């Protein structure tokens, strides 16, 4: 489907020698929203944040068999500053959390985020002391792709859902994920209560009473042997 088929005023006109060949109009009309969204959704450059096996599937998606470039993800942008969509592929340990957050902060607006696979979306099987229980506690996520790992078709479908989301956006509205306060750089995206809610029914083995009681006390005054 080319511009000619979808743009208004693209029928035959009296003028010959138009931009789409003989018989096509010599002018285009469109809505600013439409043309900007069309440009954005067909030139989504992914920022690959691959930490585990999901990244293998992500690489397969970009290779010739599946060829992400068909849909506008022309190249993987290994700098966040030239990227449009962050693909978090794999588990994220707490030690890596500030790095992920910083990369997200460094991406220019407009930007989108895909959480690829079970570990990025929820911690997956790694319900342990070292692992972030879902990257949505750190950065906003537009599309979650289930799977362990998802097949390349899954990733491509997720990217096409992002494209669909972009298609429905409008310049006249601020979107929640666009509204970024610089004062909030490197801070958790979710509040404490949200983190506890997002991290699942088990919370934390040492404190089923999640936000109350001894734990905060323990956090402030860990005994000496804990700190040694």
């Amino acid at each position: 489907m080319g511009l000619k088929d979808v743009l208004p005023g693209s029928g035959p006109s009296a003028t010959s020698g138009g931009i789409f060949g003989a018989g096509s109009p010599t002018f285009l009309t469109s809505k600013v929203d439409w043309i900007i969204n069309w440009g954005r959704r067909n030139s989504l450059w992914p920022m690959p944040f691959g930490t585990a096996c999901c990244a293998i599937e992500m690489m397969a998606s970009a290779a010739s068999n599946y060829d992400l470039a068909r849909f506008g993800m022309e190249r993987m942008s290994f700098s966040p500053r030239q990227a449009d969509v962050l693909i978090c592929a794999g588990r994220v340990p707490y030690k890596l959390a500030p790095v992920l957050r910083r990369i997200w902060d460094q991406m220019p607006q407009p930007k989108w985020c895909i959480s690829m696979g079970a570990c990025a979306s929820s911690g997956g099987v790694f319900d342990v002391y070292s692992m972030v229980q879902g990257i949505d506690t750190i950065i906003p996520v537009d599309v979650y792709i289930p799977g362990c790992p998802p097949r390349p078709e899954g990733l491509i479908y997720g990217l096409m859902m992002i494209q669909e989301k972009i298609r429905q956006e409008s310049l006249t509205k601020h979107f929640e994920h666009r509204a970024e306060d610089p004062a909030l750089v490197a801070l958790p995206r979710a509040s404490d209560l949200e983190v506890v809610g997002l991290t699942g029914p088990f919370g934390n083995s040492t404190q089923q009473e999640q936000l109350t009681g001894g734990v905060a006390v323990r956090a402030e005054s860990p005994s000496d042997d804990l700190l040694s």
Partner: protein
Amino acid sequence: MTEEKKSGLDAIDEGPTASDAATPTGGGTAGDPADHASVQGLMAQFSDAVMRHRVNAGDQHVVWIDAARSHEMLTWLRDDPDQLYDMMSDVTGLDYGGGRPVEVVYQMYSTTHKHILRLRCELPLDALEIDSVCDLWKSANWLEREVYDLFGVTFKGHPDLRRILMPDDYAEGHPLRKDFPLRGRFSRAEQTRRALNQEVERYYLAEDLDTGLVPQEAPTAEVRRAEDAGGDL
């Protein structure tokens, strides 16, 4: 279960649950020192510091040695012309829980004599200290840091003993100890907050960390709300 569900934190204060601490660790079969020249040598040279000898998986000779004399014995194993263990393949830790001692395991290889040997030192829980072997094998440096990080064993004489896998400011303890709760000691919210408050400035250049967001230029929340409402500020 009639008993009230206990918090994992209680176990920290009460100490490890009782278990059969008398059972020797390690498994394997009784070893014959005659099968391995180094075991024989160790027993001849340090008869009072060799505590046990077992054989695992057919030909893996394991010798339990006195932690207080470990450095002396490892030096001998490296330098003696009949031993020449010039490669420290692995230094790792073991915690069987139940109040049993934490062990430090040395896995060594001699490229000259093609010998493999494993040494184990038992450290009581109230004195988790052993001499570092960084001065003998450079490879022990990070391996000992890992054991320190995950088991809390202090290596005396280590040039740079700090955490290697967990974040530098990790305050929940040593995760591979048996008394460590699987999901950590702090709430997920606290863990997330601490993770994002790590001092990334120590590891990255300022230009790497620059977000390009200039506070004056970007609209604040109030401005955005006013815009959305259609008014001007």
